[in-house]
């Protein structure tokens, strides 16, 4: 790509009858992630009619309404279940799930691991801001140990999930992690994810200053992006670091890259086979 595909392209995918700017807070990483998603759909030359965005509840869930695809804003935690029904019924559609960390890992944790196990052809974006933003800053299953939130006012005692590791363990075909600070890399990760058969998951570490940063010694949204710049480390380099080097960093990049056929592919192949037997 010689030219940056930027916001003039994105504007073509936004719903012009919706009120902008969107409802999210200043500096929220979710807008950047949505931008990356739109750019990757554009790069792949997908038709708007063939793209379905299925969103859960929370800040991430609010994104769906702004984009001019087929959009379904579902219930809390269950986006993957609706997406599964849509994908099985219409396998030619590109089905993309937009979920937050509380959405995908707490109330929807069961659906995430089963979608991965089933290897259904859905691309899941987990926008991880380590907090319940929409409901006012309660701790989430990815809130790091020791962090503060409305419901862990004395410091979180529980450990947070490693989202990528969880998806890997559950059998996802493609697992990657990016951040809102590394937007260009995010484009590439999403393009790979969208091209993969079966279940692909991209975790996007996306800062929430309003609900998380303020309570955890970040001076402003910019401060959080600086933290991302400092601590997000390419997975290859991260692996070479010793324990102390890894301590305040987290790996980004591609963790799993398999090509097993998706469930819908196998199911329709089975149907074909049975039809052959019938005639």
């Amino acid at each position, binding site marked *: 790509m010689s030219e940056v595909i930027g*916001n003039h392209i994105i504007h073509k995918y936004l719903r012009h009858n919706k009120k902008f*700017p969107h409802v999210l807070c*200043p*500096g*929220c990483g979710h*807008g950047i992630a949505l931008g990356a998603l739109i750019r990757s759909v554009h790069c792949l030359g997908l038709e708007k009619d063939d793209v379905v965005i299925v969103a859960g509840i929370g800040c991430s869930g609010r994104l769906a309404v702004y984009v001019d695809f087929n959009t379904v804003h579902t219930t809390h935690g269950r986006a993957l279940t609706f997406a599964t029904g849509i994908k099985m019924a219409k396998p030619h559609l590109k089905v993309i799930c937009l979920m937050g960390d509380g959405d995908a890992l707490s109330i929807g944790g069961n659906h995430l691991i089963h979608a991965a196990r089933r290897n259904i052809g859905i691309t899941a974006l987990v926008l991880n801001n380590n907090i319940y933003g929409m409901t006012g800053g309660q701790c989430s299953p990815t809130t790091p140990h020791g962090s503060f939130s409305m419901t862990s006012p004395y410091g979180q005692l529980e450990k947070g999930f490693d989202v990528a590791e969880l998806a890997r363990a559950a059998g996802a075909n493609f697992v990657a992690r990016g951040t809102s*600070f590394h937007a260009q890399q995010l484009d590439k990760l999403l393009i790979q994810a969208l091209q993969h058969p079966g279940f692909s998951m991209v975790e996007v570490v996306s800062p929430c200053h309003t609900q998380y940063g303020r309570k955890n010694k970040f001076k402003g949204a*910019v401060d959080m992006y600086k933290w991302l710049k400092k601590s997000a480390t390419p997975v290859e380099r991260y692996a070479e670091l010793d324990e102390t080097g890894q301590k305040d960093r987290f790996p980004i990049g591609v963790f799993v890259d398999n090509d097993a056929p998706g469930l819908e592919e196998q199911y329709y192949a089975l149907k074909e086979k049975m039809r052959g037997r019938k005639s």
Partner: protein
Amino acid sequence: MAKEKGNSKVTIYPDWCKGCGICVAFCPAKVIELDGQGKARVVREEDCIHCGFCELHCPDFAIVVTEIERCPK
């Protein structure tokens, strides 16, 4: 990606800008500043190297960077 200085035009839509300051903080050429109302404003457009960071990282899709169209000599 980066290009010669002086060839880029940076447009900011103030209506959409929420003043988060990401573009200001990370612009390598210090092209953008926050104005008195807390919104991003282009102050040194001639220094822009067209890296695209501000455009890609504006959470509100409020910045567009384009090449300056010049009449052929």
